[in-house]
């Protein structure tokens, strides 16, 4: 995996810069485009980490569906959903919260002993299929419940506000 290090560094830098773009952009359109770049960079990282199927899923589900959904909602917002500058208390809270979260995670990471990766695992999509319908069958099937809840919930929220706003 050592020979992939330059590509990994490039992917990590792009992912971090676009994440800054998501957090700091004043307009939601710019944030959504930065989120698109971010998800594509992560898909590249997944490819480098020998997770082809997750990379394809990231591009199709994330870049293709979620980011486009965000863009559609931005189109429907008044004035593009622009927001005012955050107050200094909010900036302080965000800086403290982010720094504290990173300190806790870095503390946990330094304590880990992650084994050095060997050769890339063989099997690819077939192995994932075996895992999804074998050892991970119960969590996989349980995702249908949140999906159904999301569909019904979104329709309910919409109908309710259409009736109330009429």
């Amino acid at each position: 995996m050592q020979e992939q290090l330059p590509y990994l560094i490039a992917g990590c830098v792009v992912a971090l810069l676009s994440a800054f773009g998501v957090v700091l952009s004043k307009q939601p359109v710019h944030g959504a485009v930065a989120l698109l770049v971010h998800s594509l960079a992560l898909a590249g990282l997944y490819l480098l980490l020998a997770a082809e199927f997750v990379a394809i899923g990231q591009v199709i589900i994330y870049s293709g569906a979620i980011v486009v959904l965000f863009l559609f909602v931005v189109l429907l917002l008044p004035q593009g959903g622009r927001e005012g500058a955050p107050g200094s208390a909010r900036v302080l809270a965000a800086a403290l919260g982010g720094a504290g979260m990173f300190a806790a995670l870095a503390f946990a990471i330094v304590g880990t002993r992650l084994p050095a990766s060997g050769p890339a695992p063989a099997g690819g999509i077939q192995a994932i299929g075996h895992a999804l319908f074998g050892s991970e069958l119960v969590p996989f099937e349980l995702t249908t419940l949140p999906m159904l809840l999301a569909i019904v919930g979104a329709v309910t929220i919409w109908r309710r506000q259409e009736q109330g706003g009429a």
Partner: protein
Amino acid sequence: MFATFACTPEALVLLTSALLFALGAAGLLLRRNPMAMLMSIELMLNAGNLVLVLAARANNFVGAQAGALIVLVLGAAEAVIGLALALALFRRRSLTDADEPQEVSG
């Protein structure tokens, strides 16, 4: 010690995902627009997914990749509900600030 630690590919990806998660948390606290808050939550979900994929690679355990796919699906469901709520908030009261609503009613 830190330099040698950061130069293994695994440590680099781990550190990146920790930074991404912290950035998402900071963004969630910083922004008031519900859309931007949702995007920050998506950043945190992605950071968690990156750790899962890295663990699948390092431990040669493909079940973690399946877990990452499940997180991806749950993230999509979360985005649908969150965006529907944000849109209802915008349309009904033309609010772009998550702090302003003081009451919840049908």
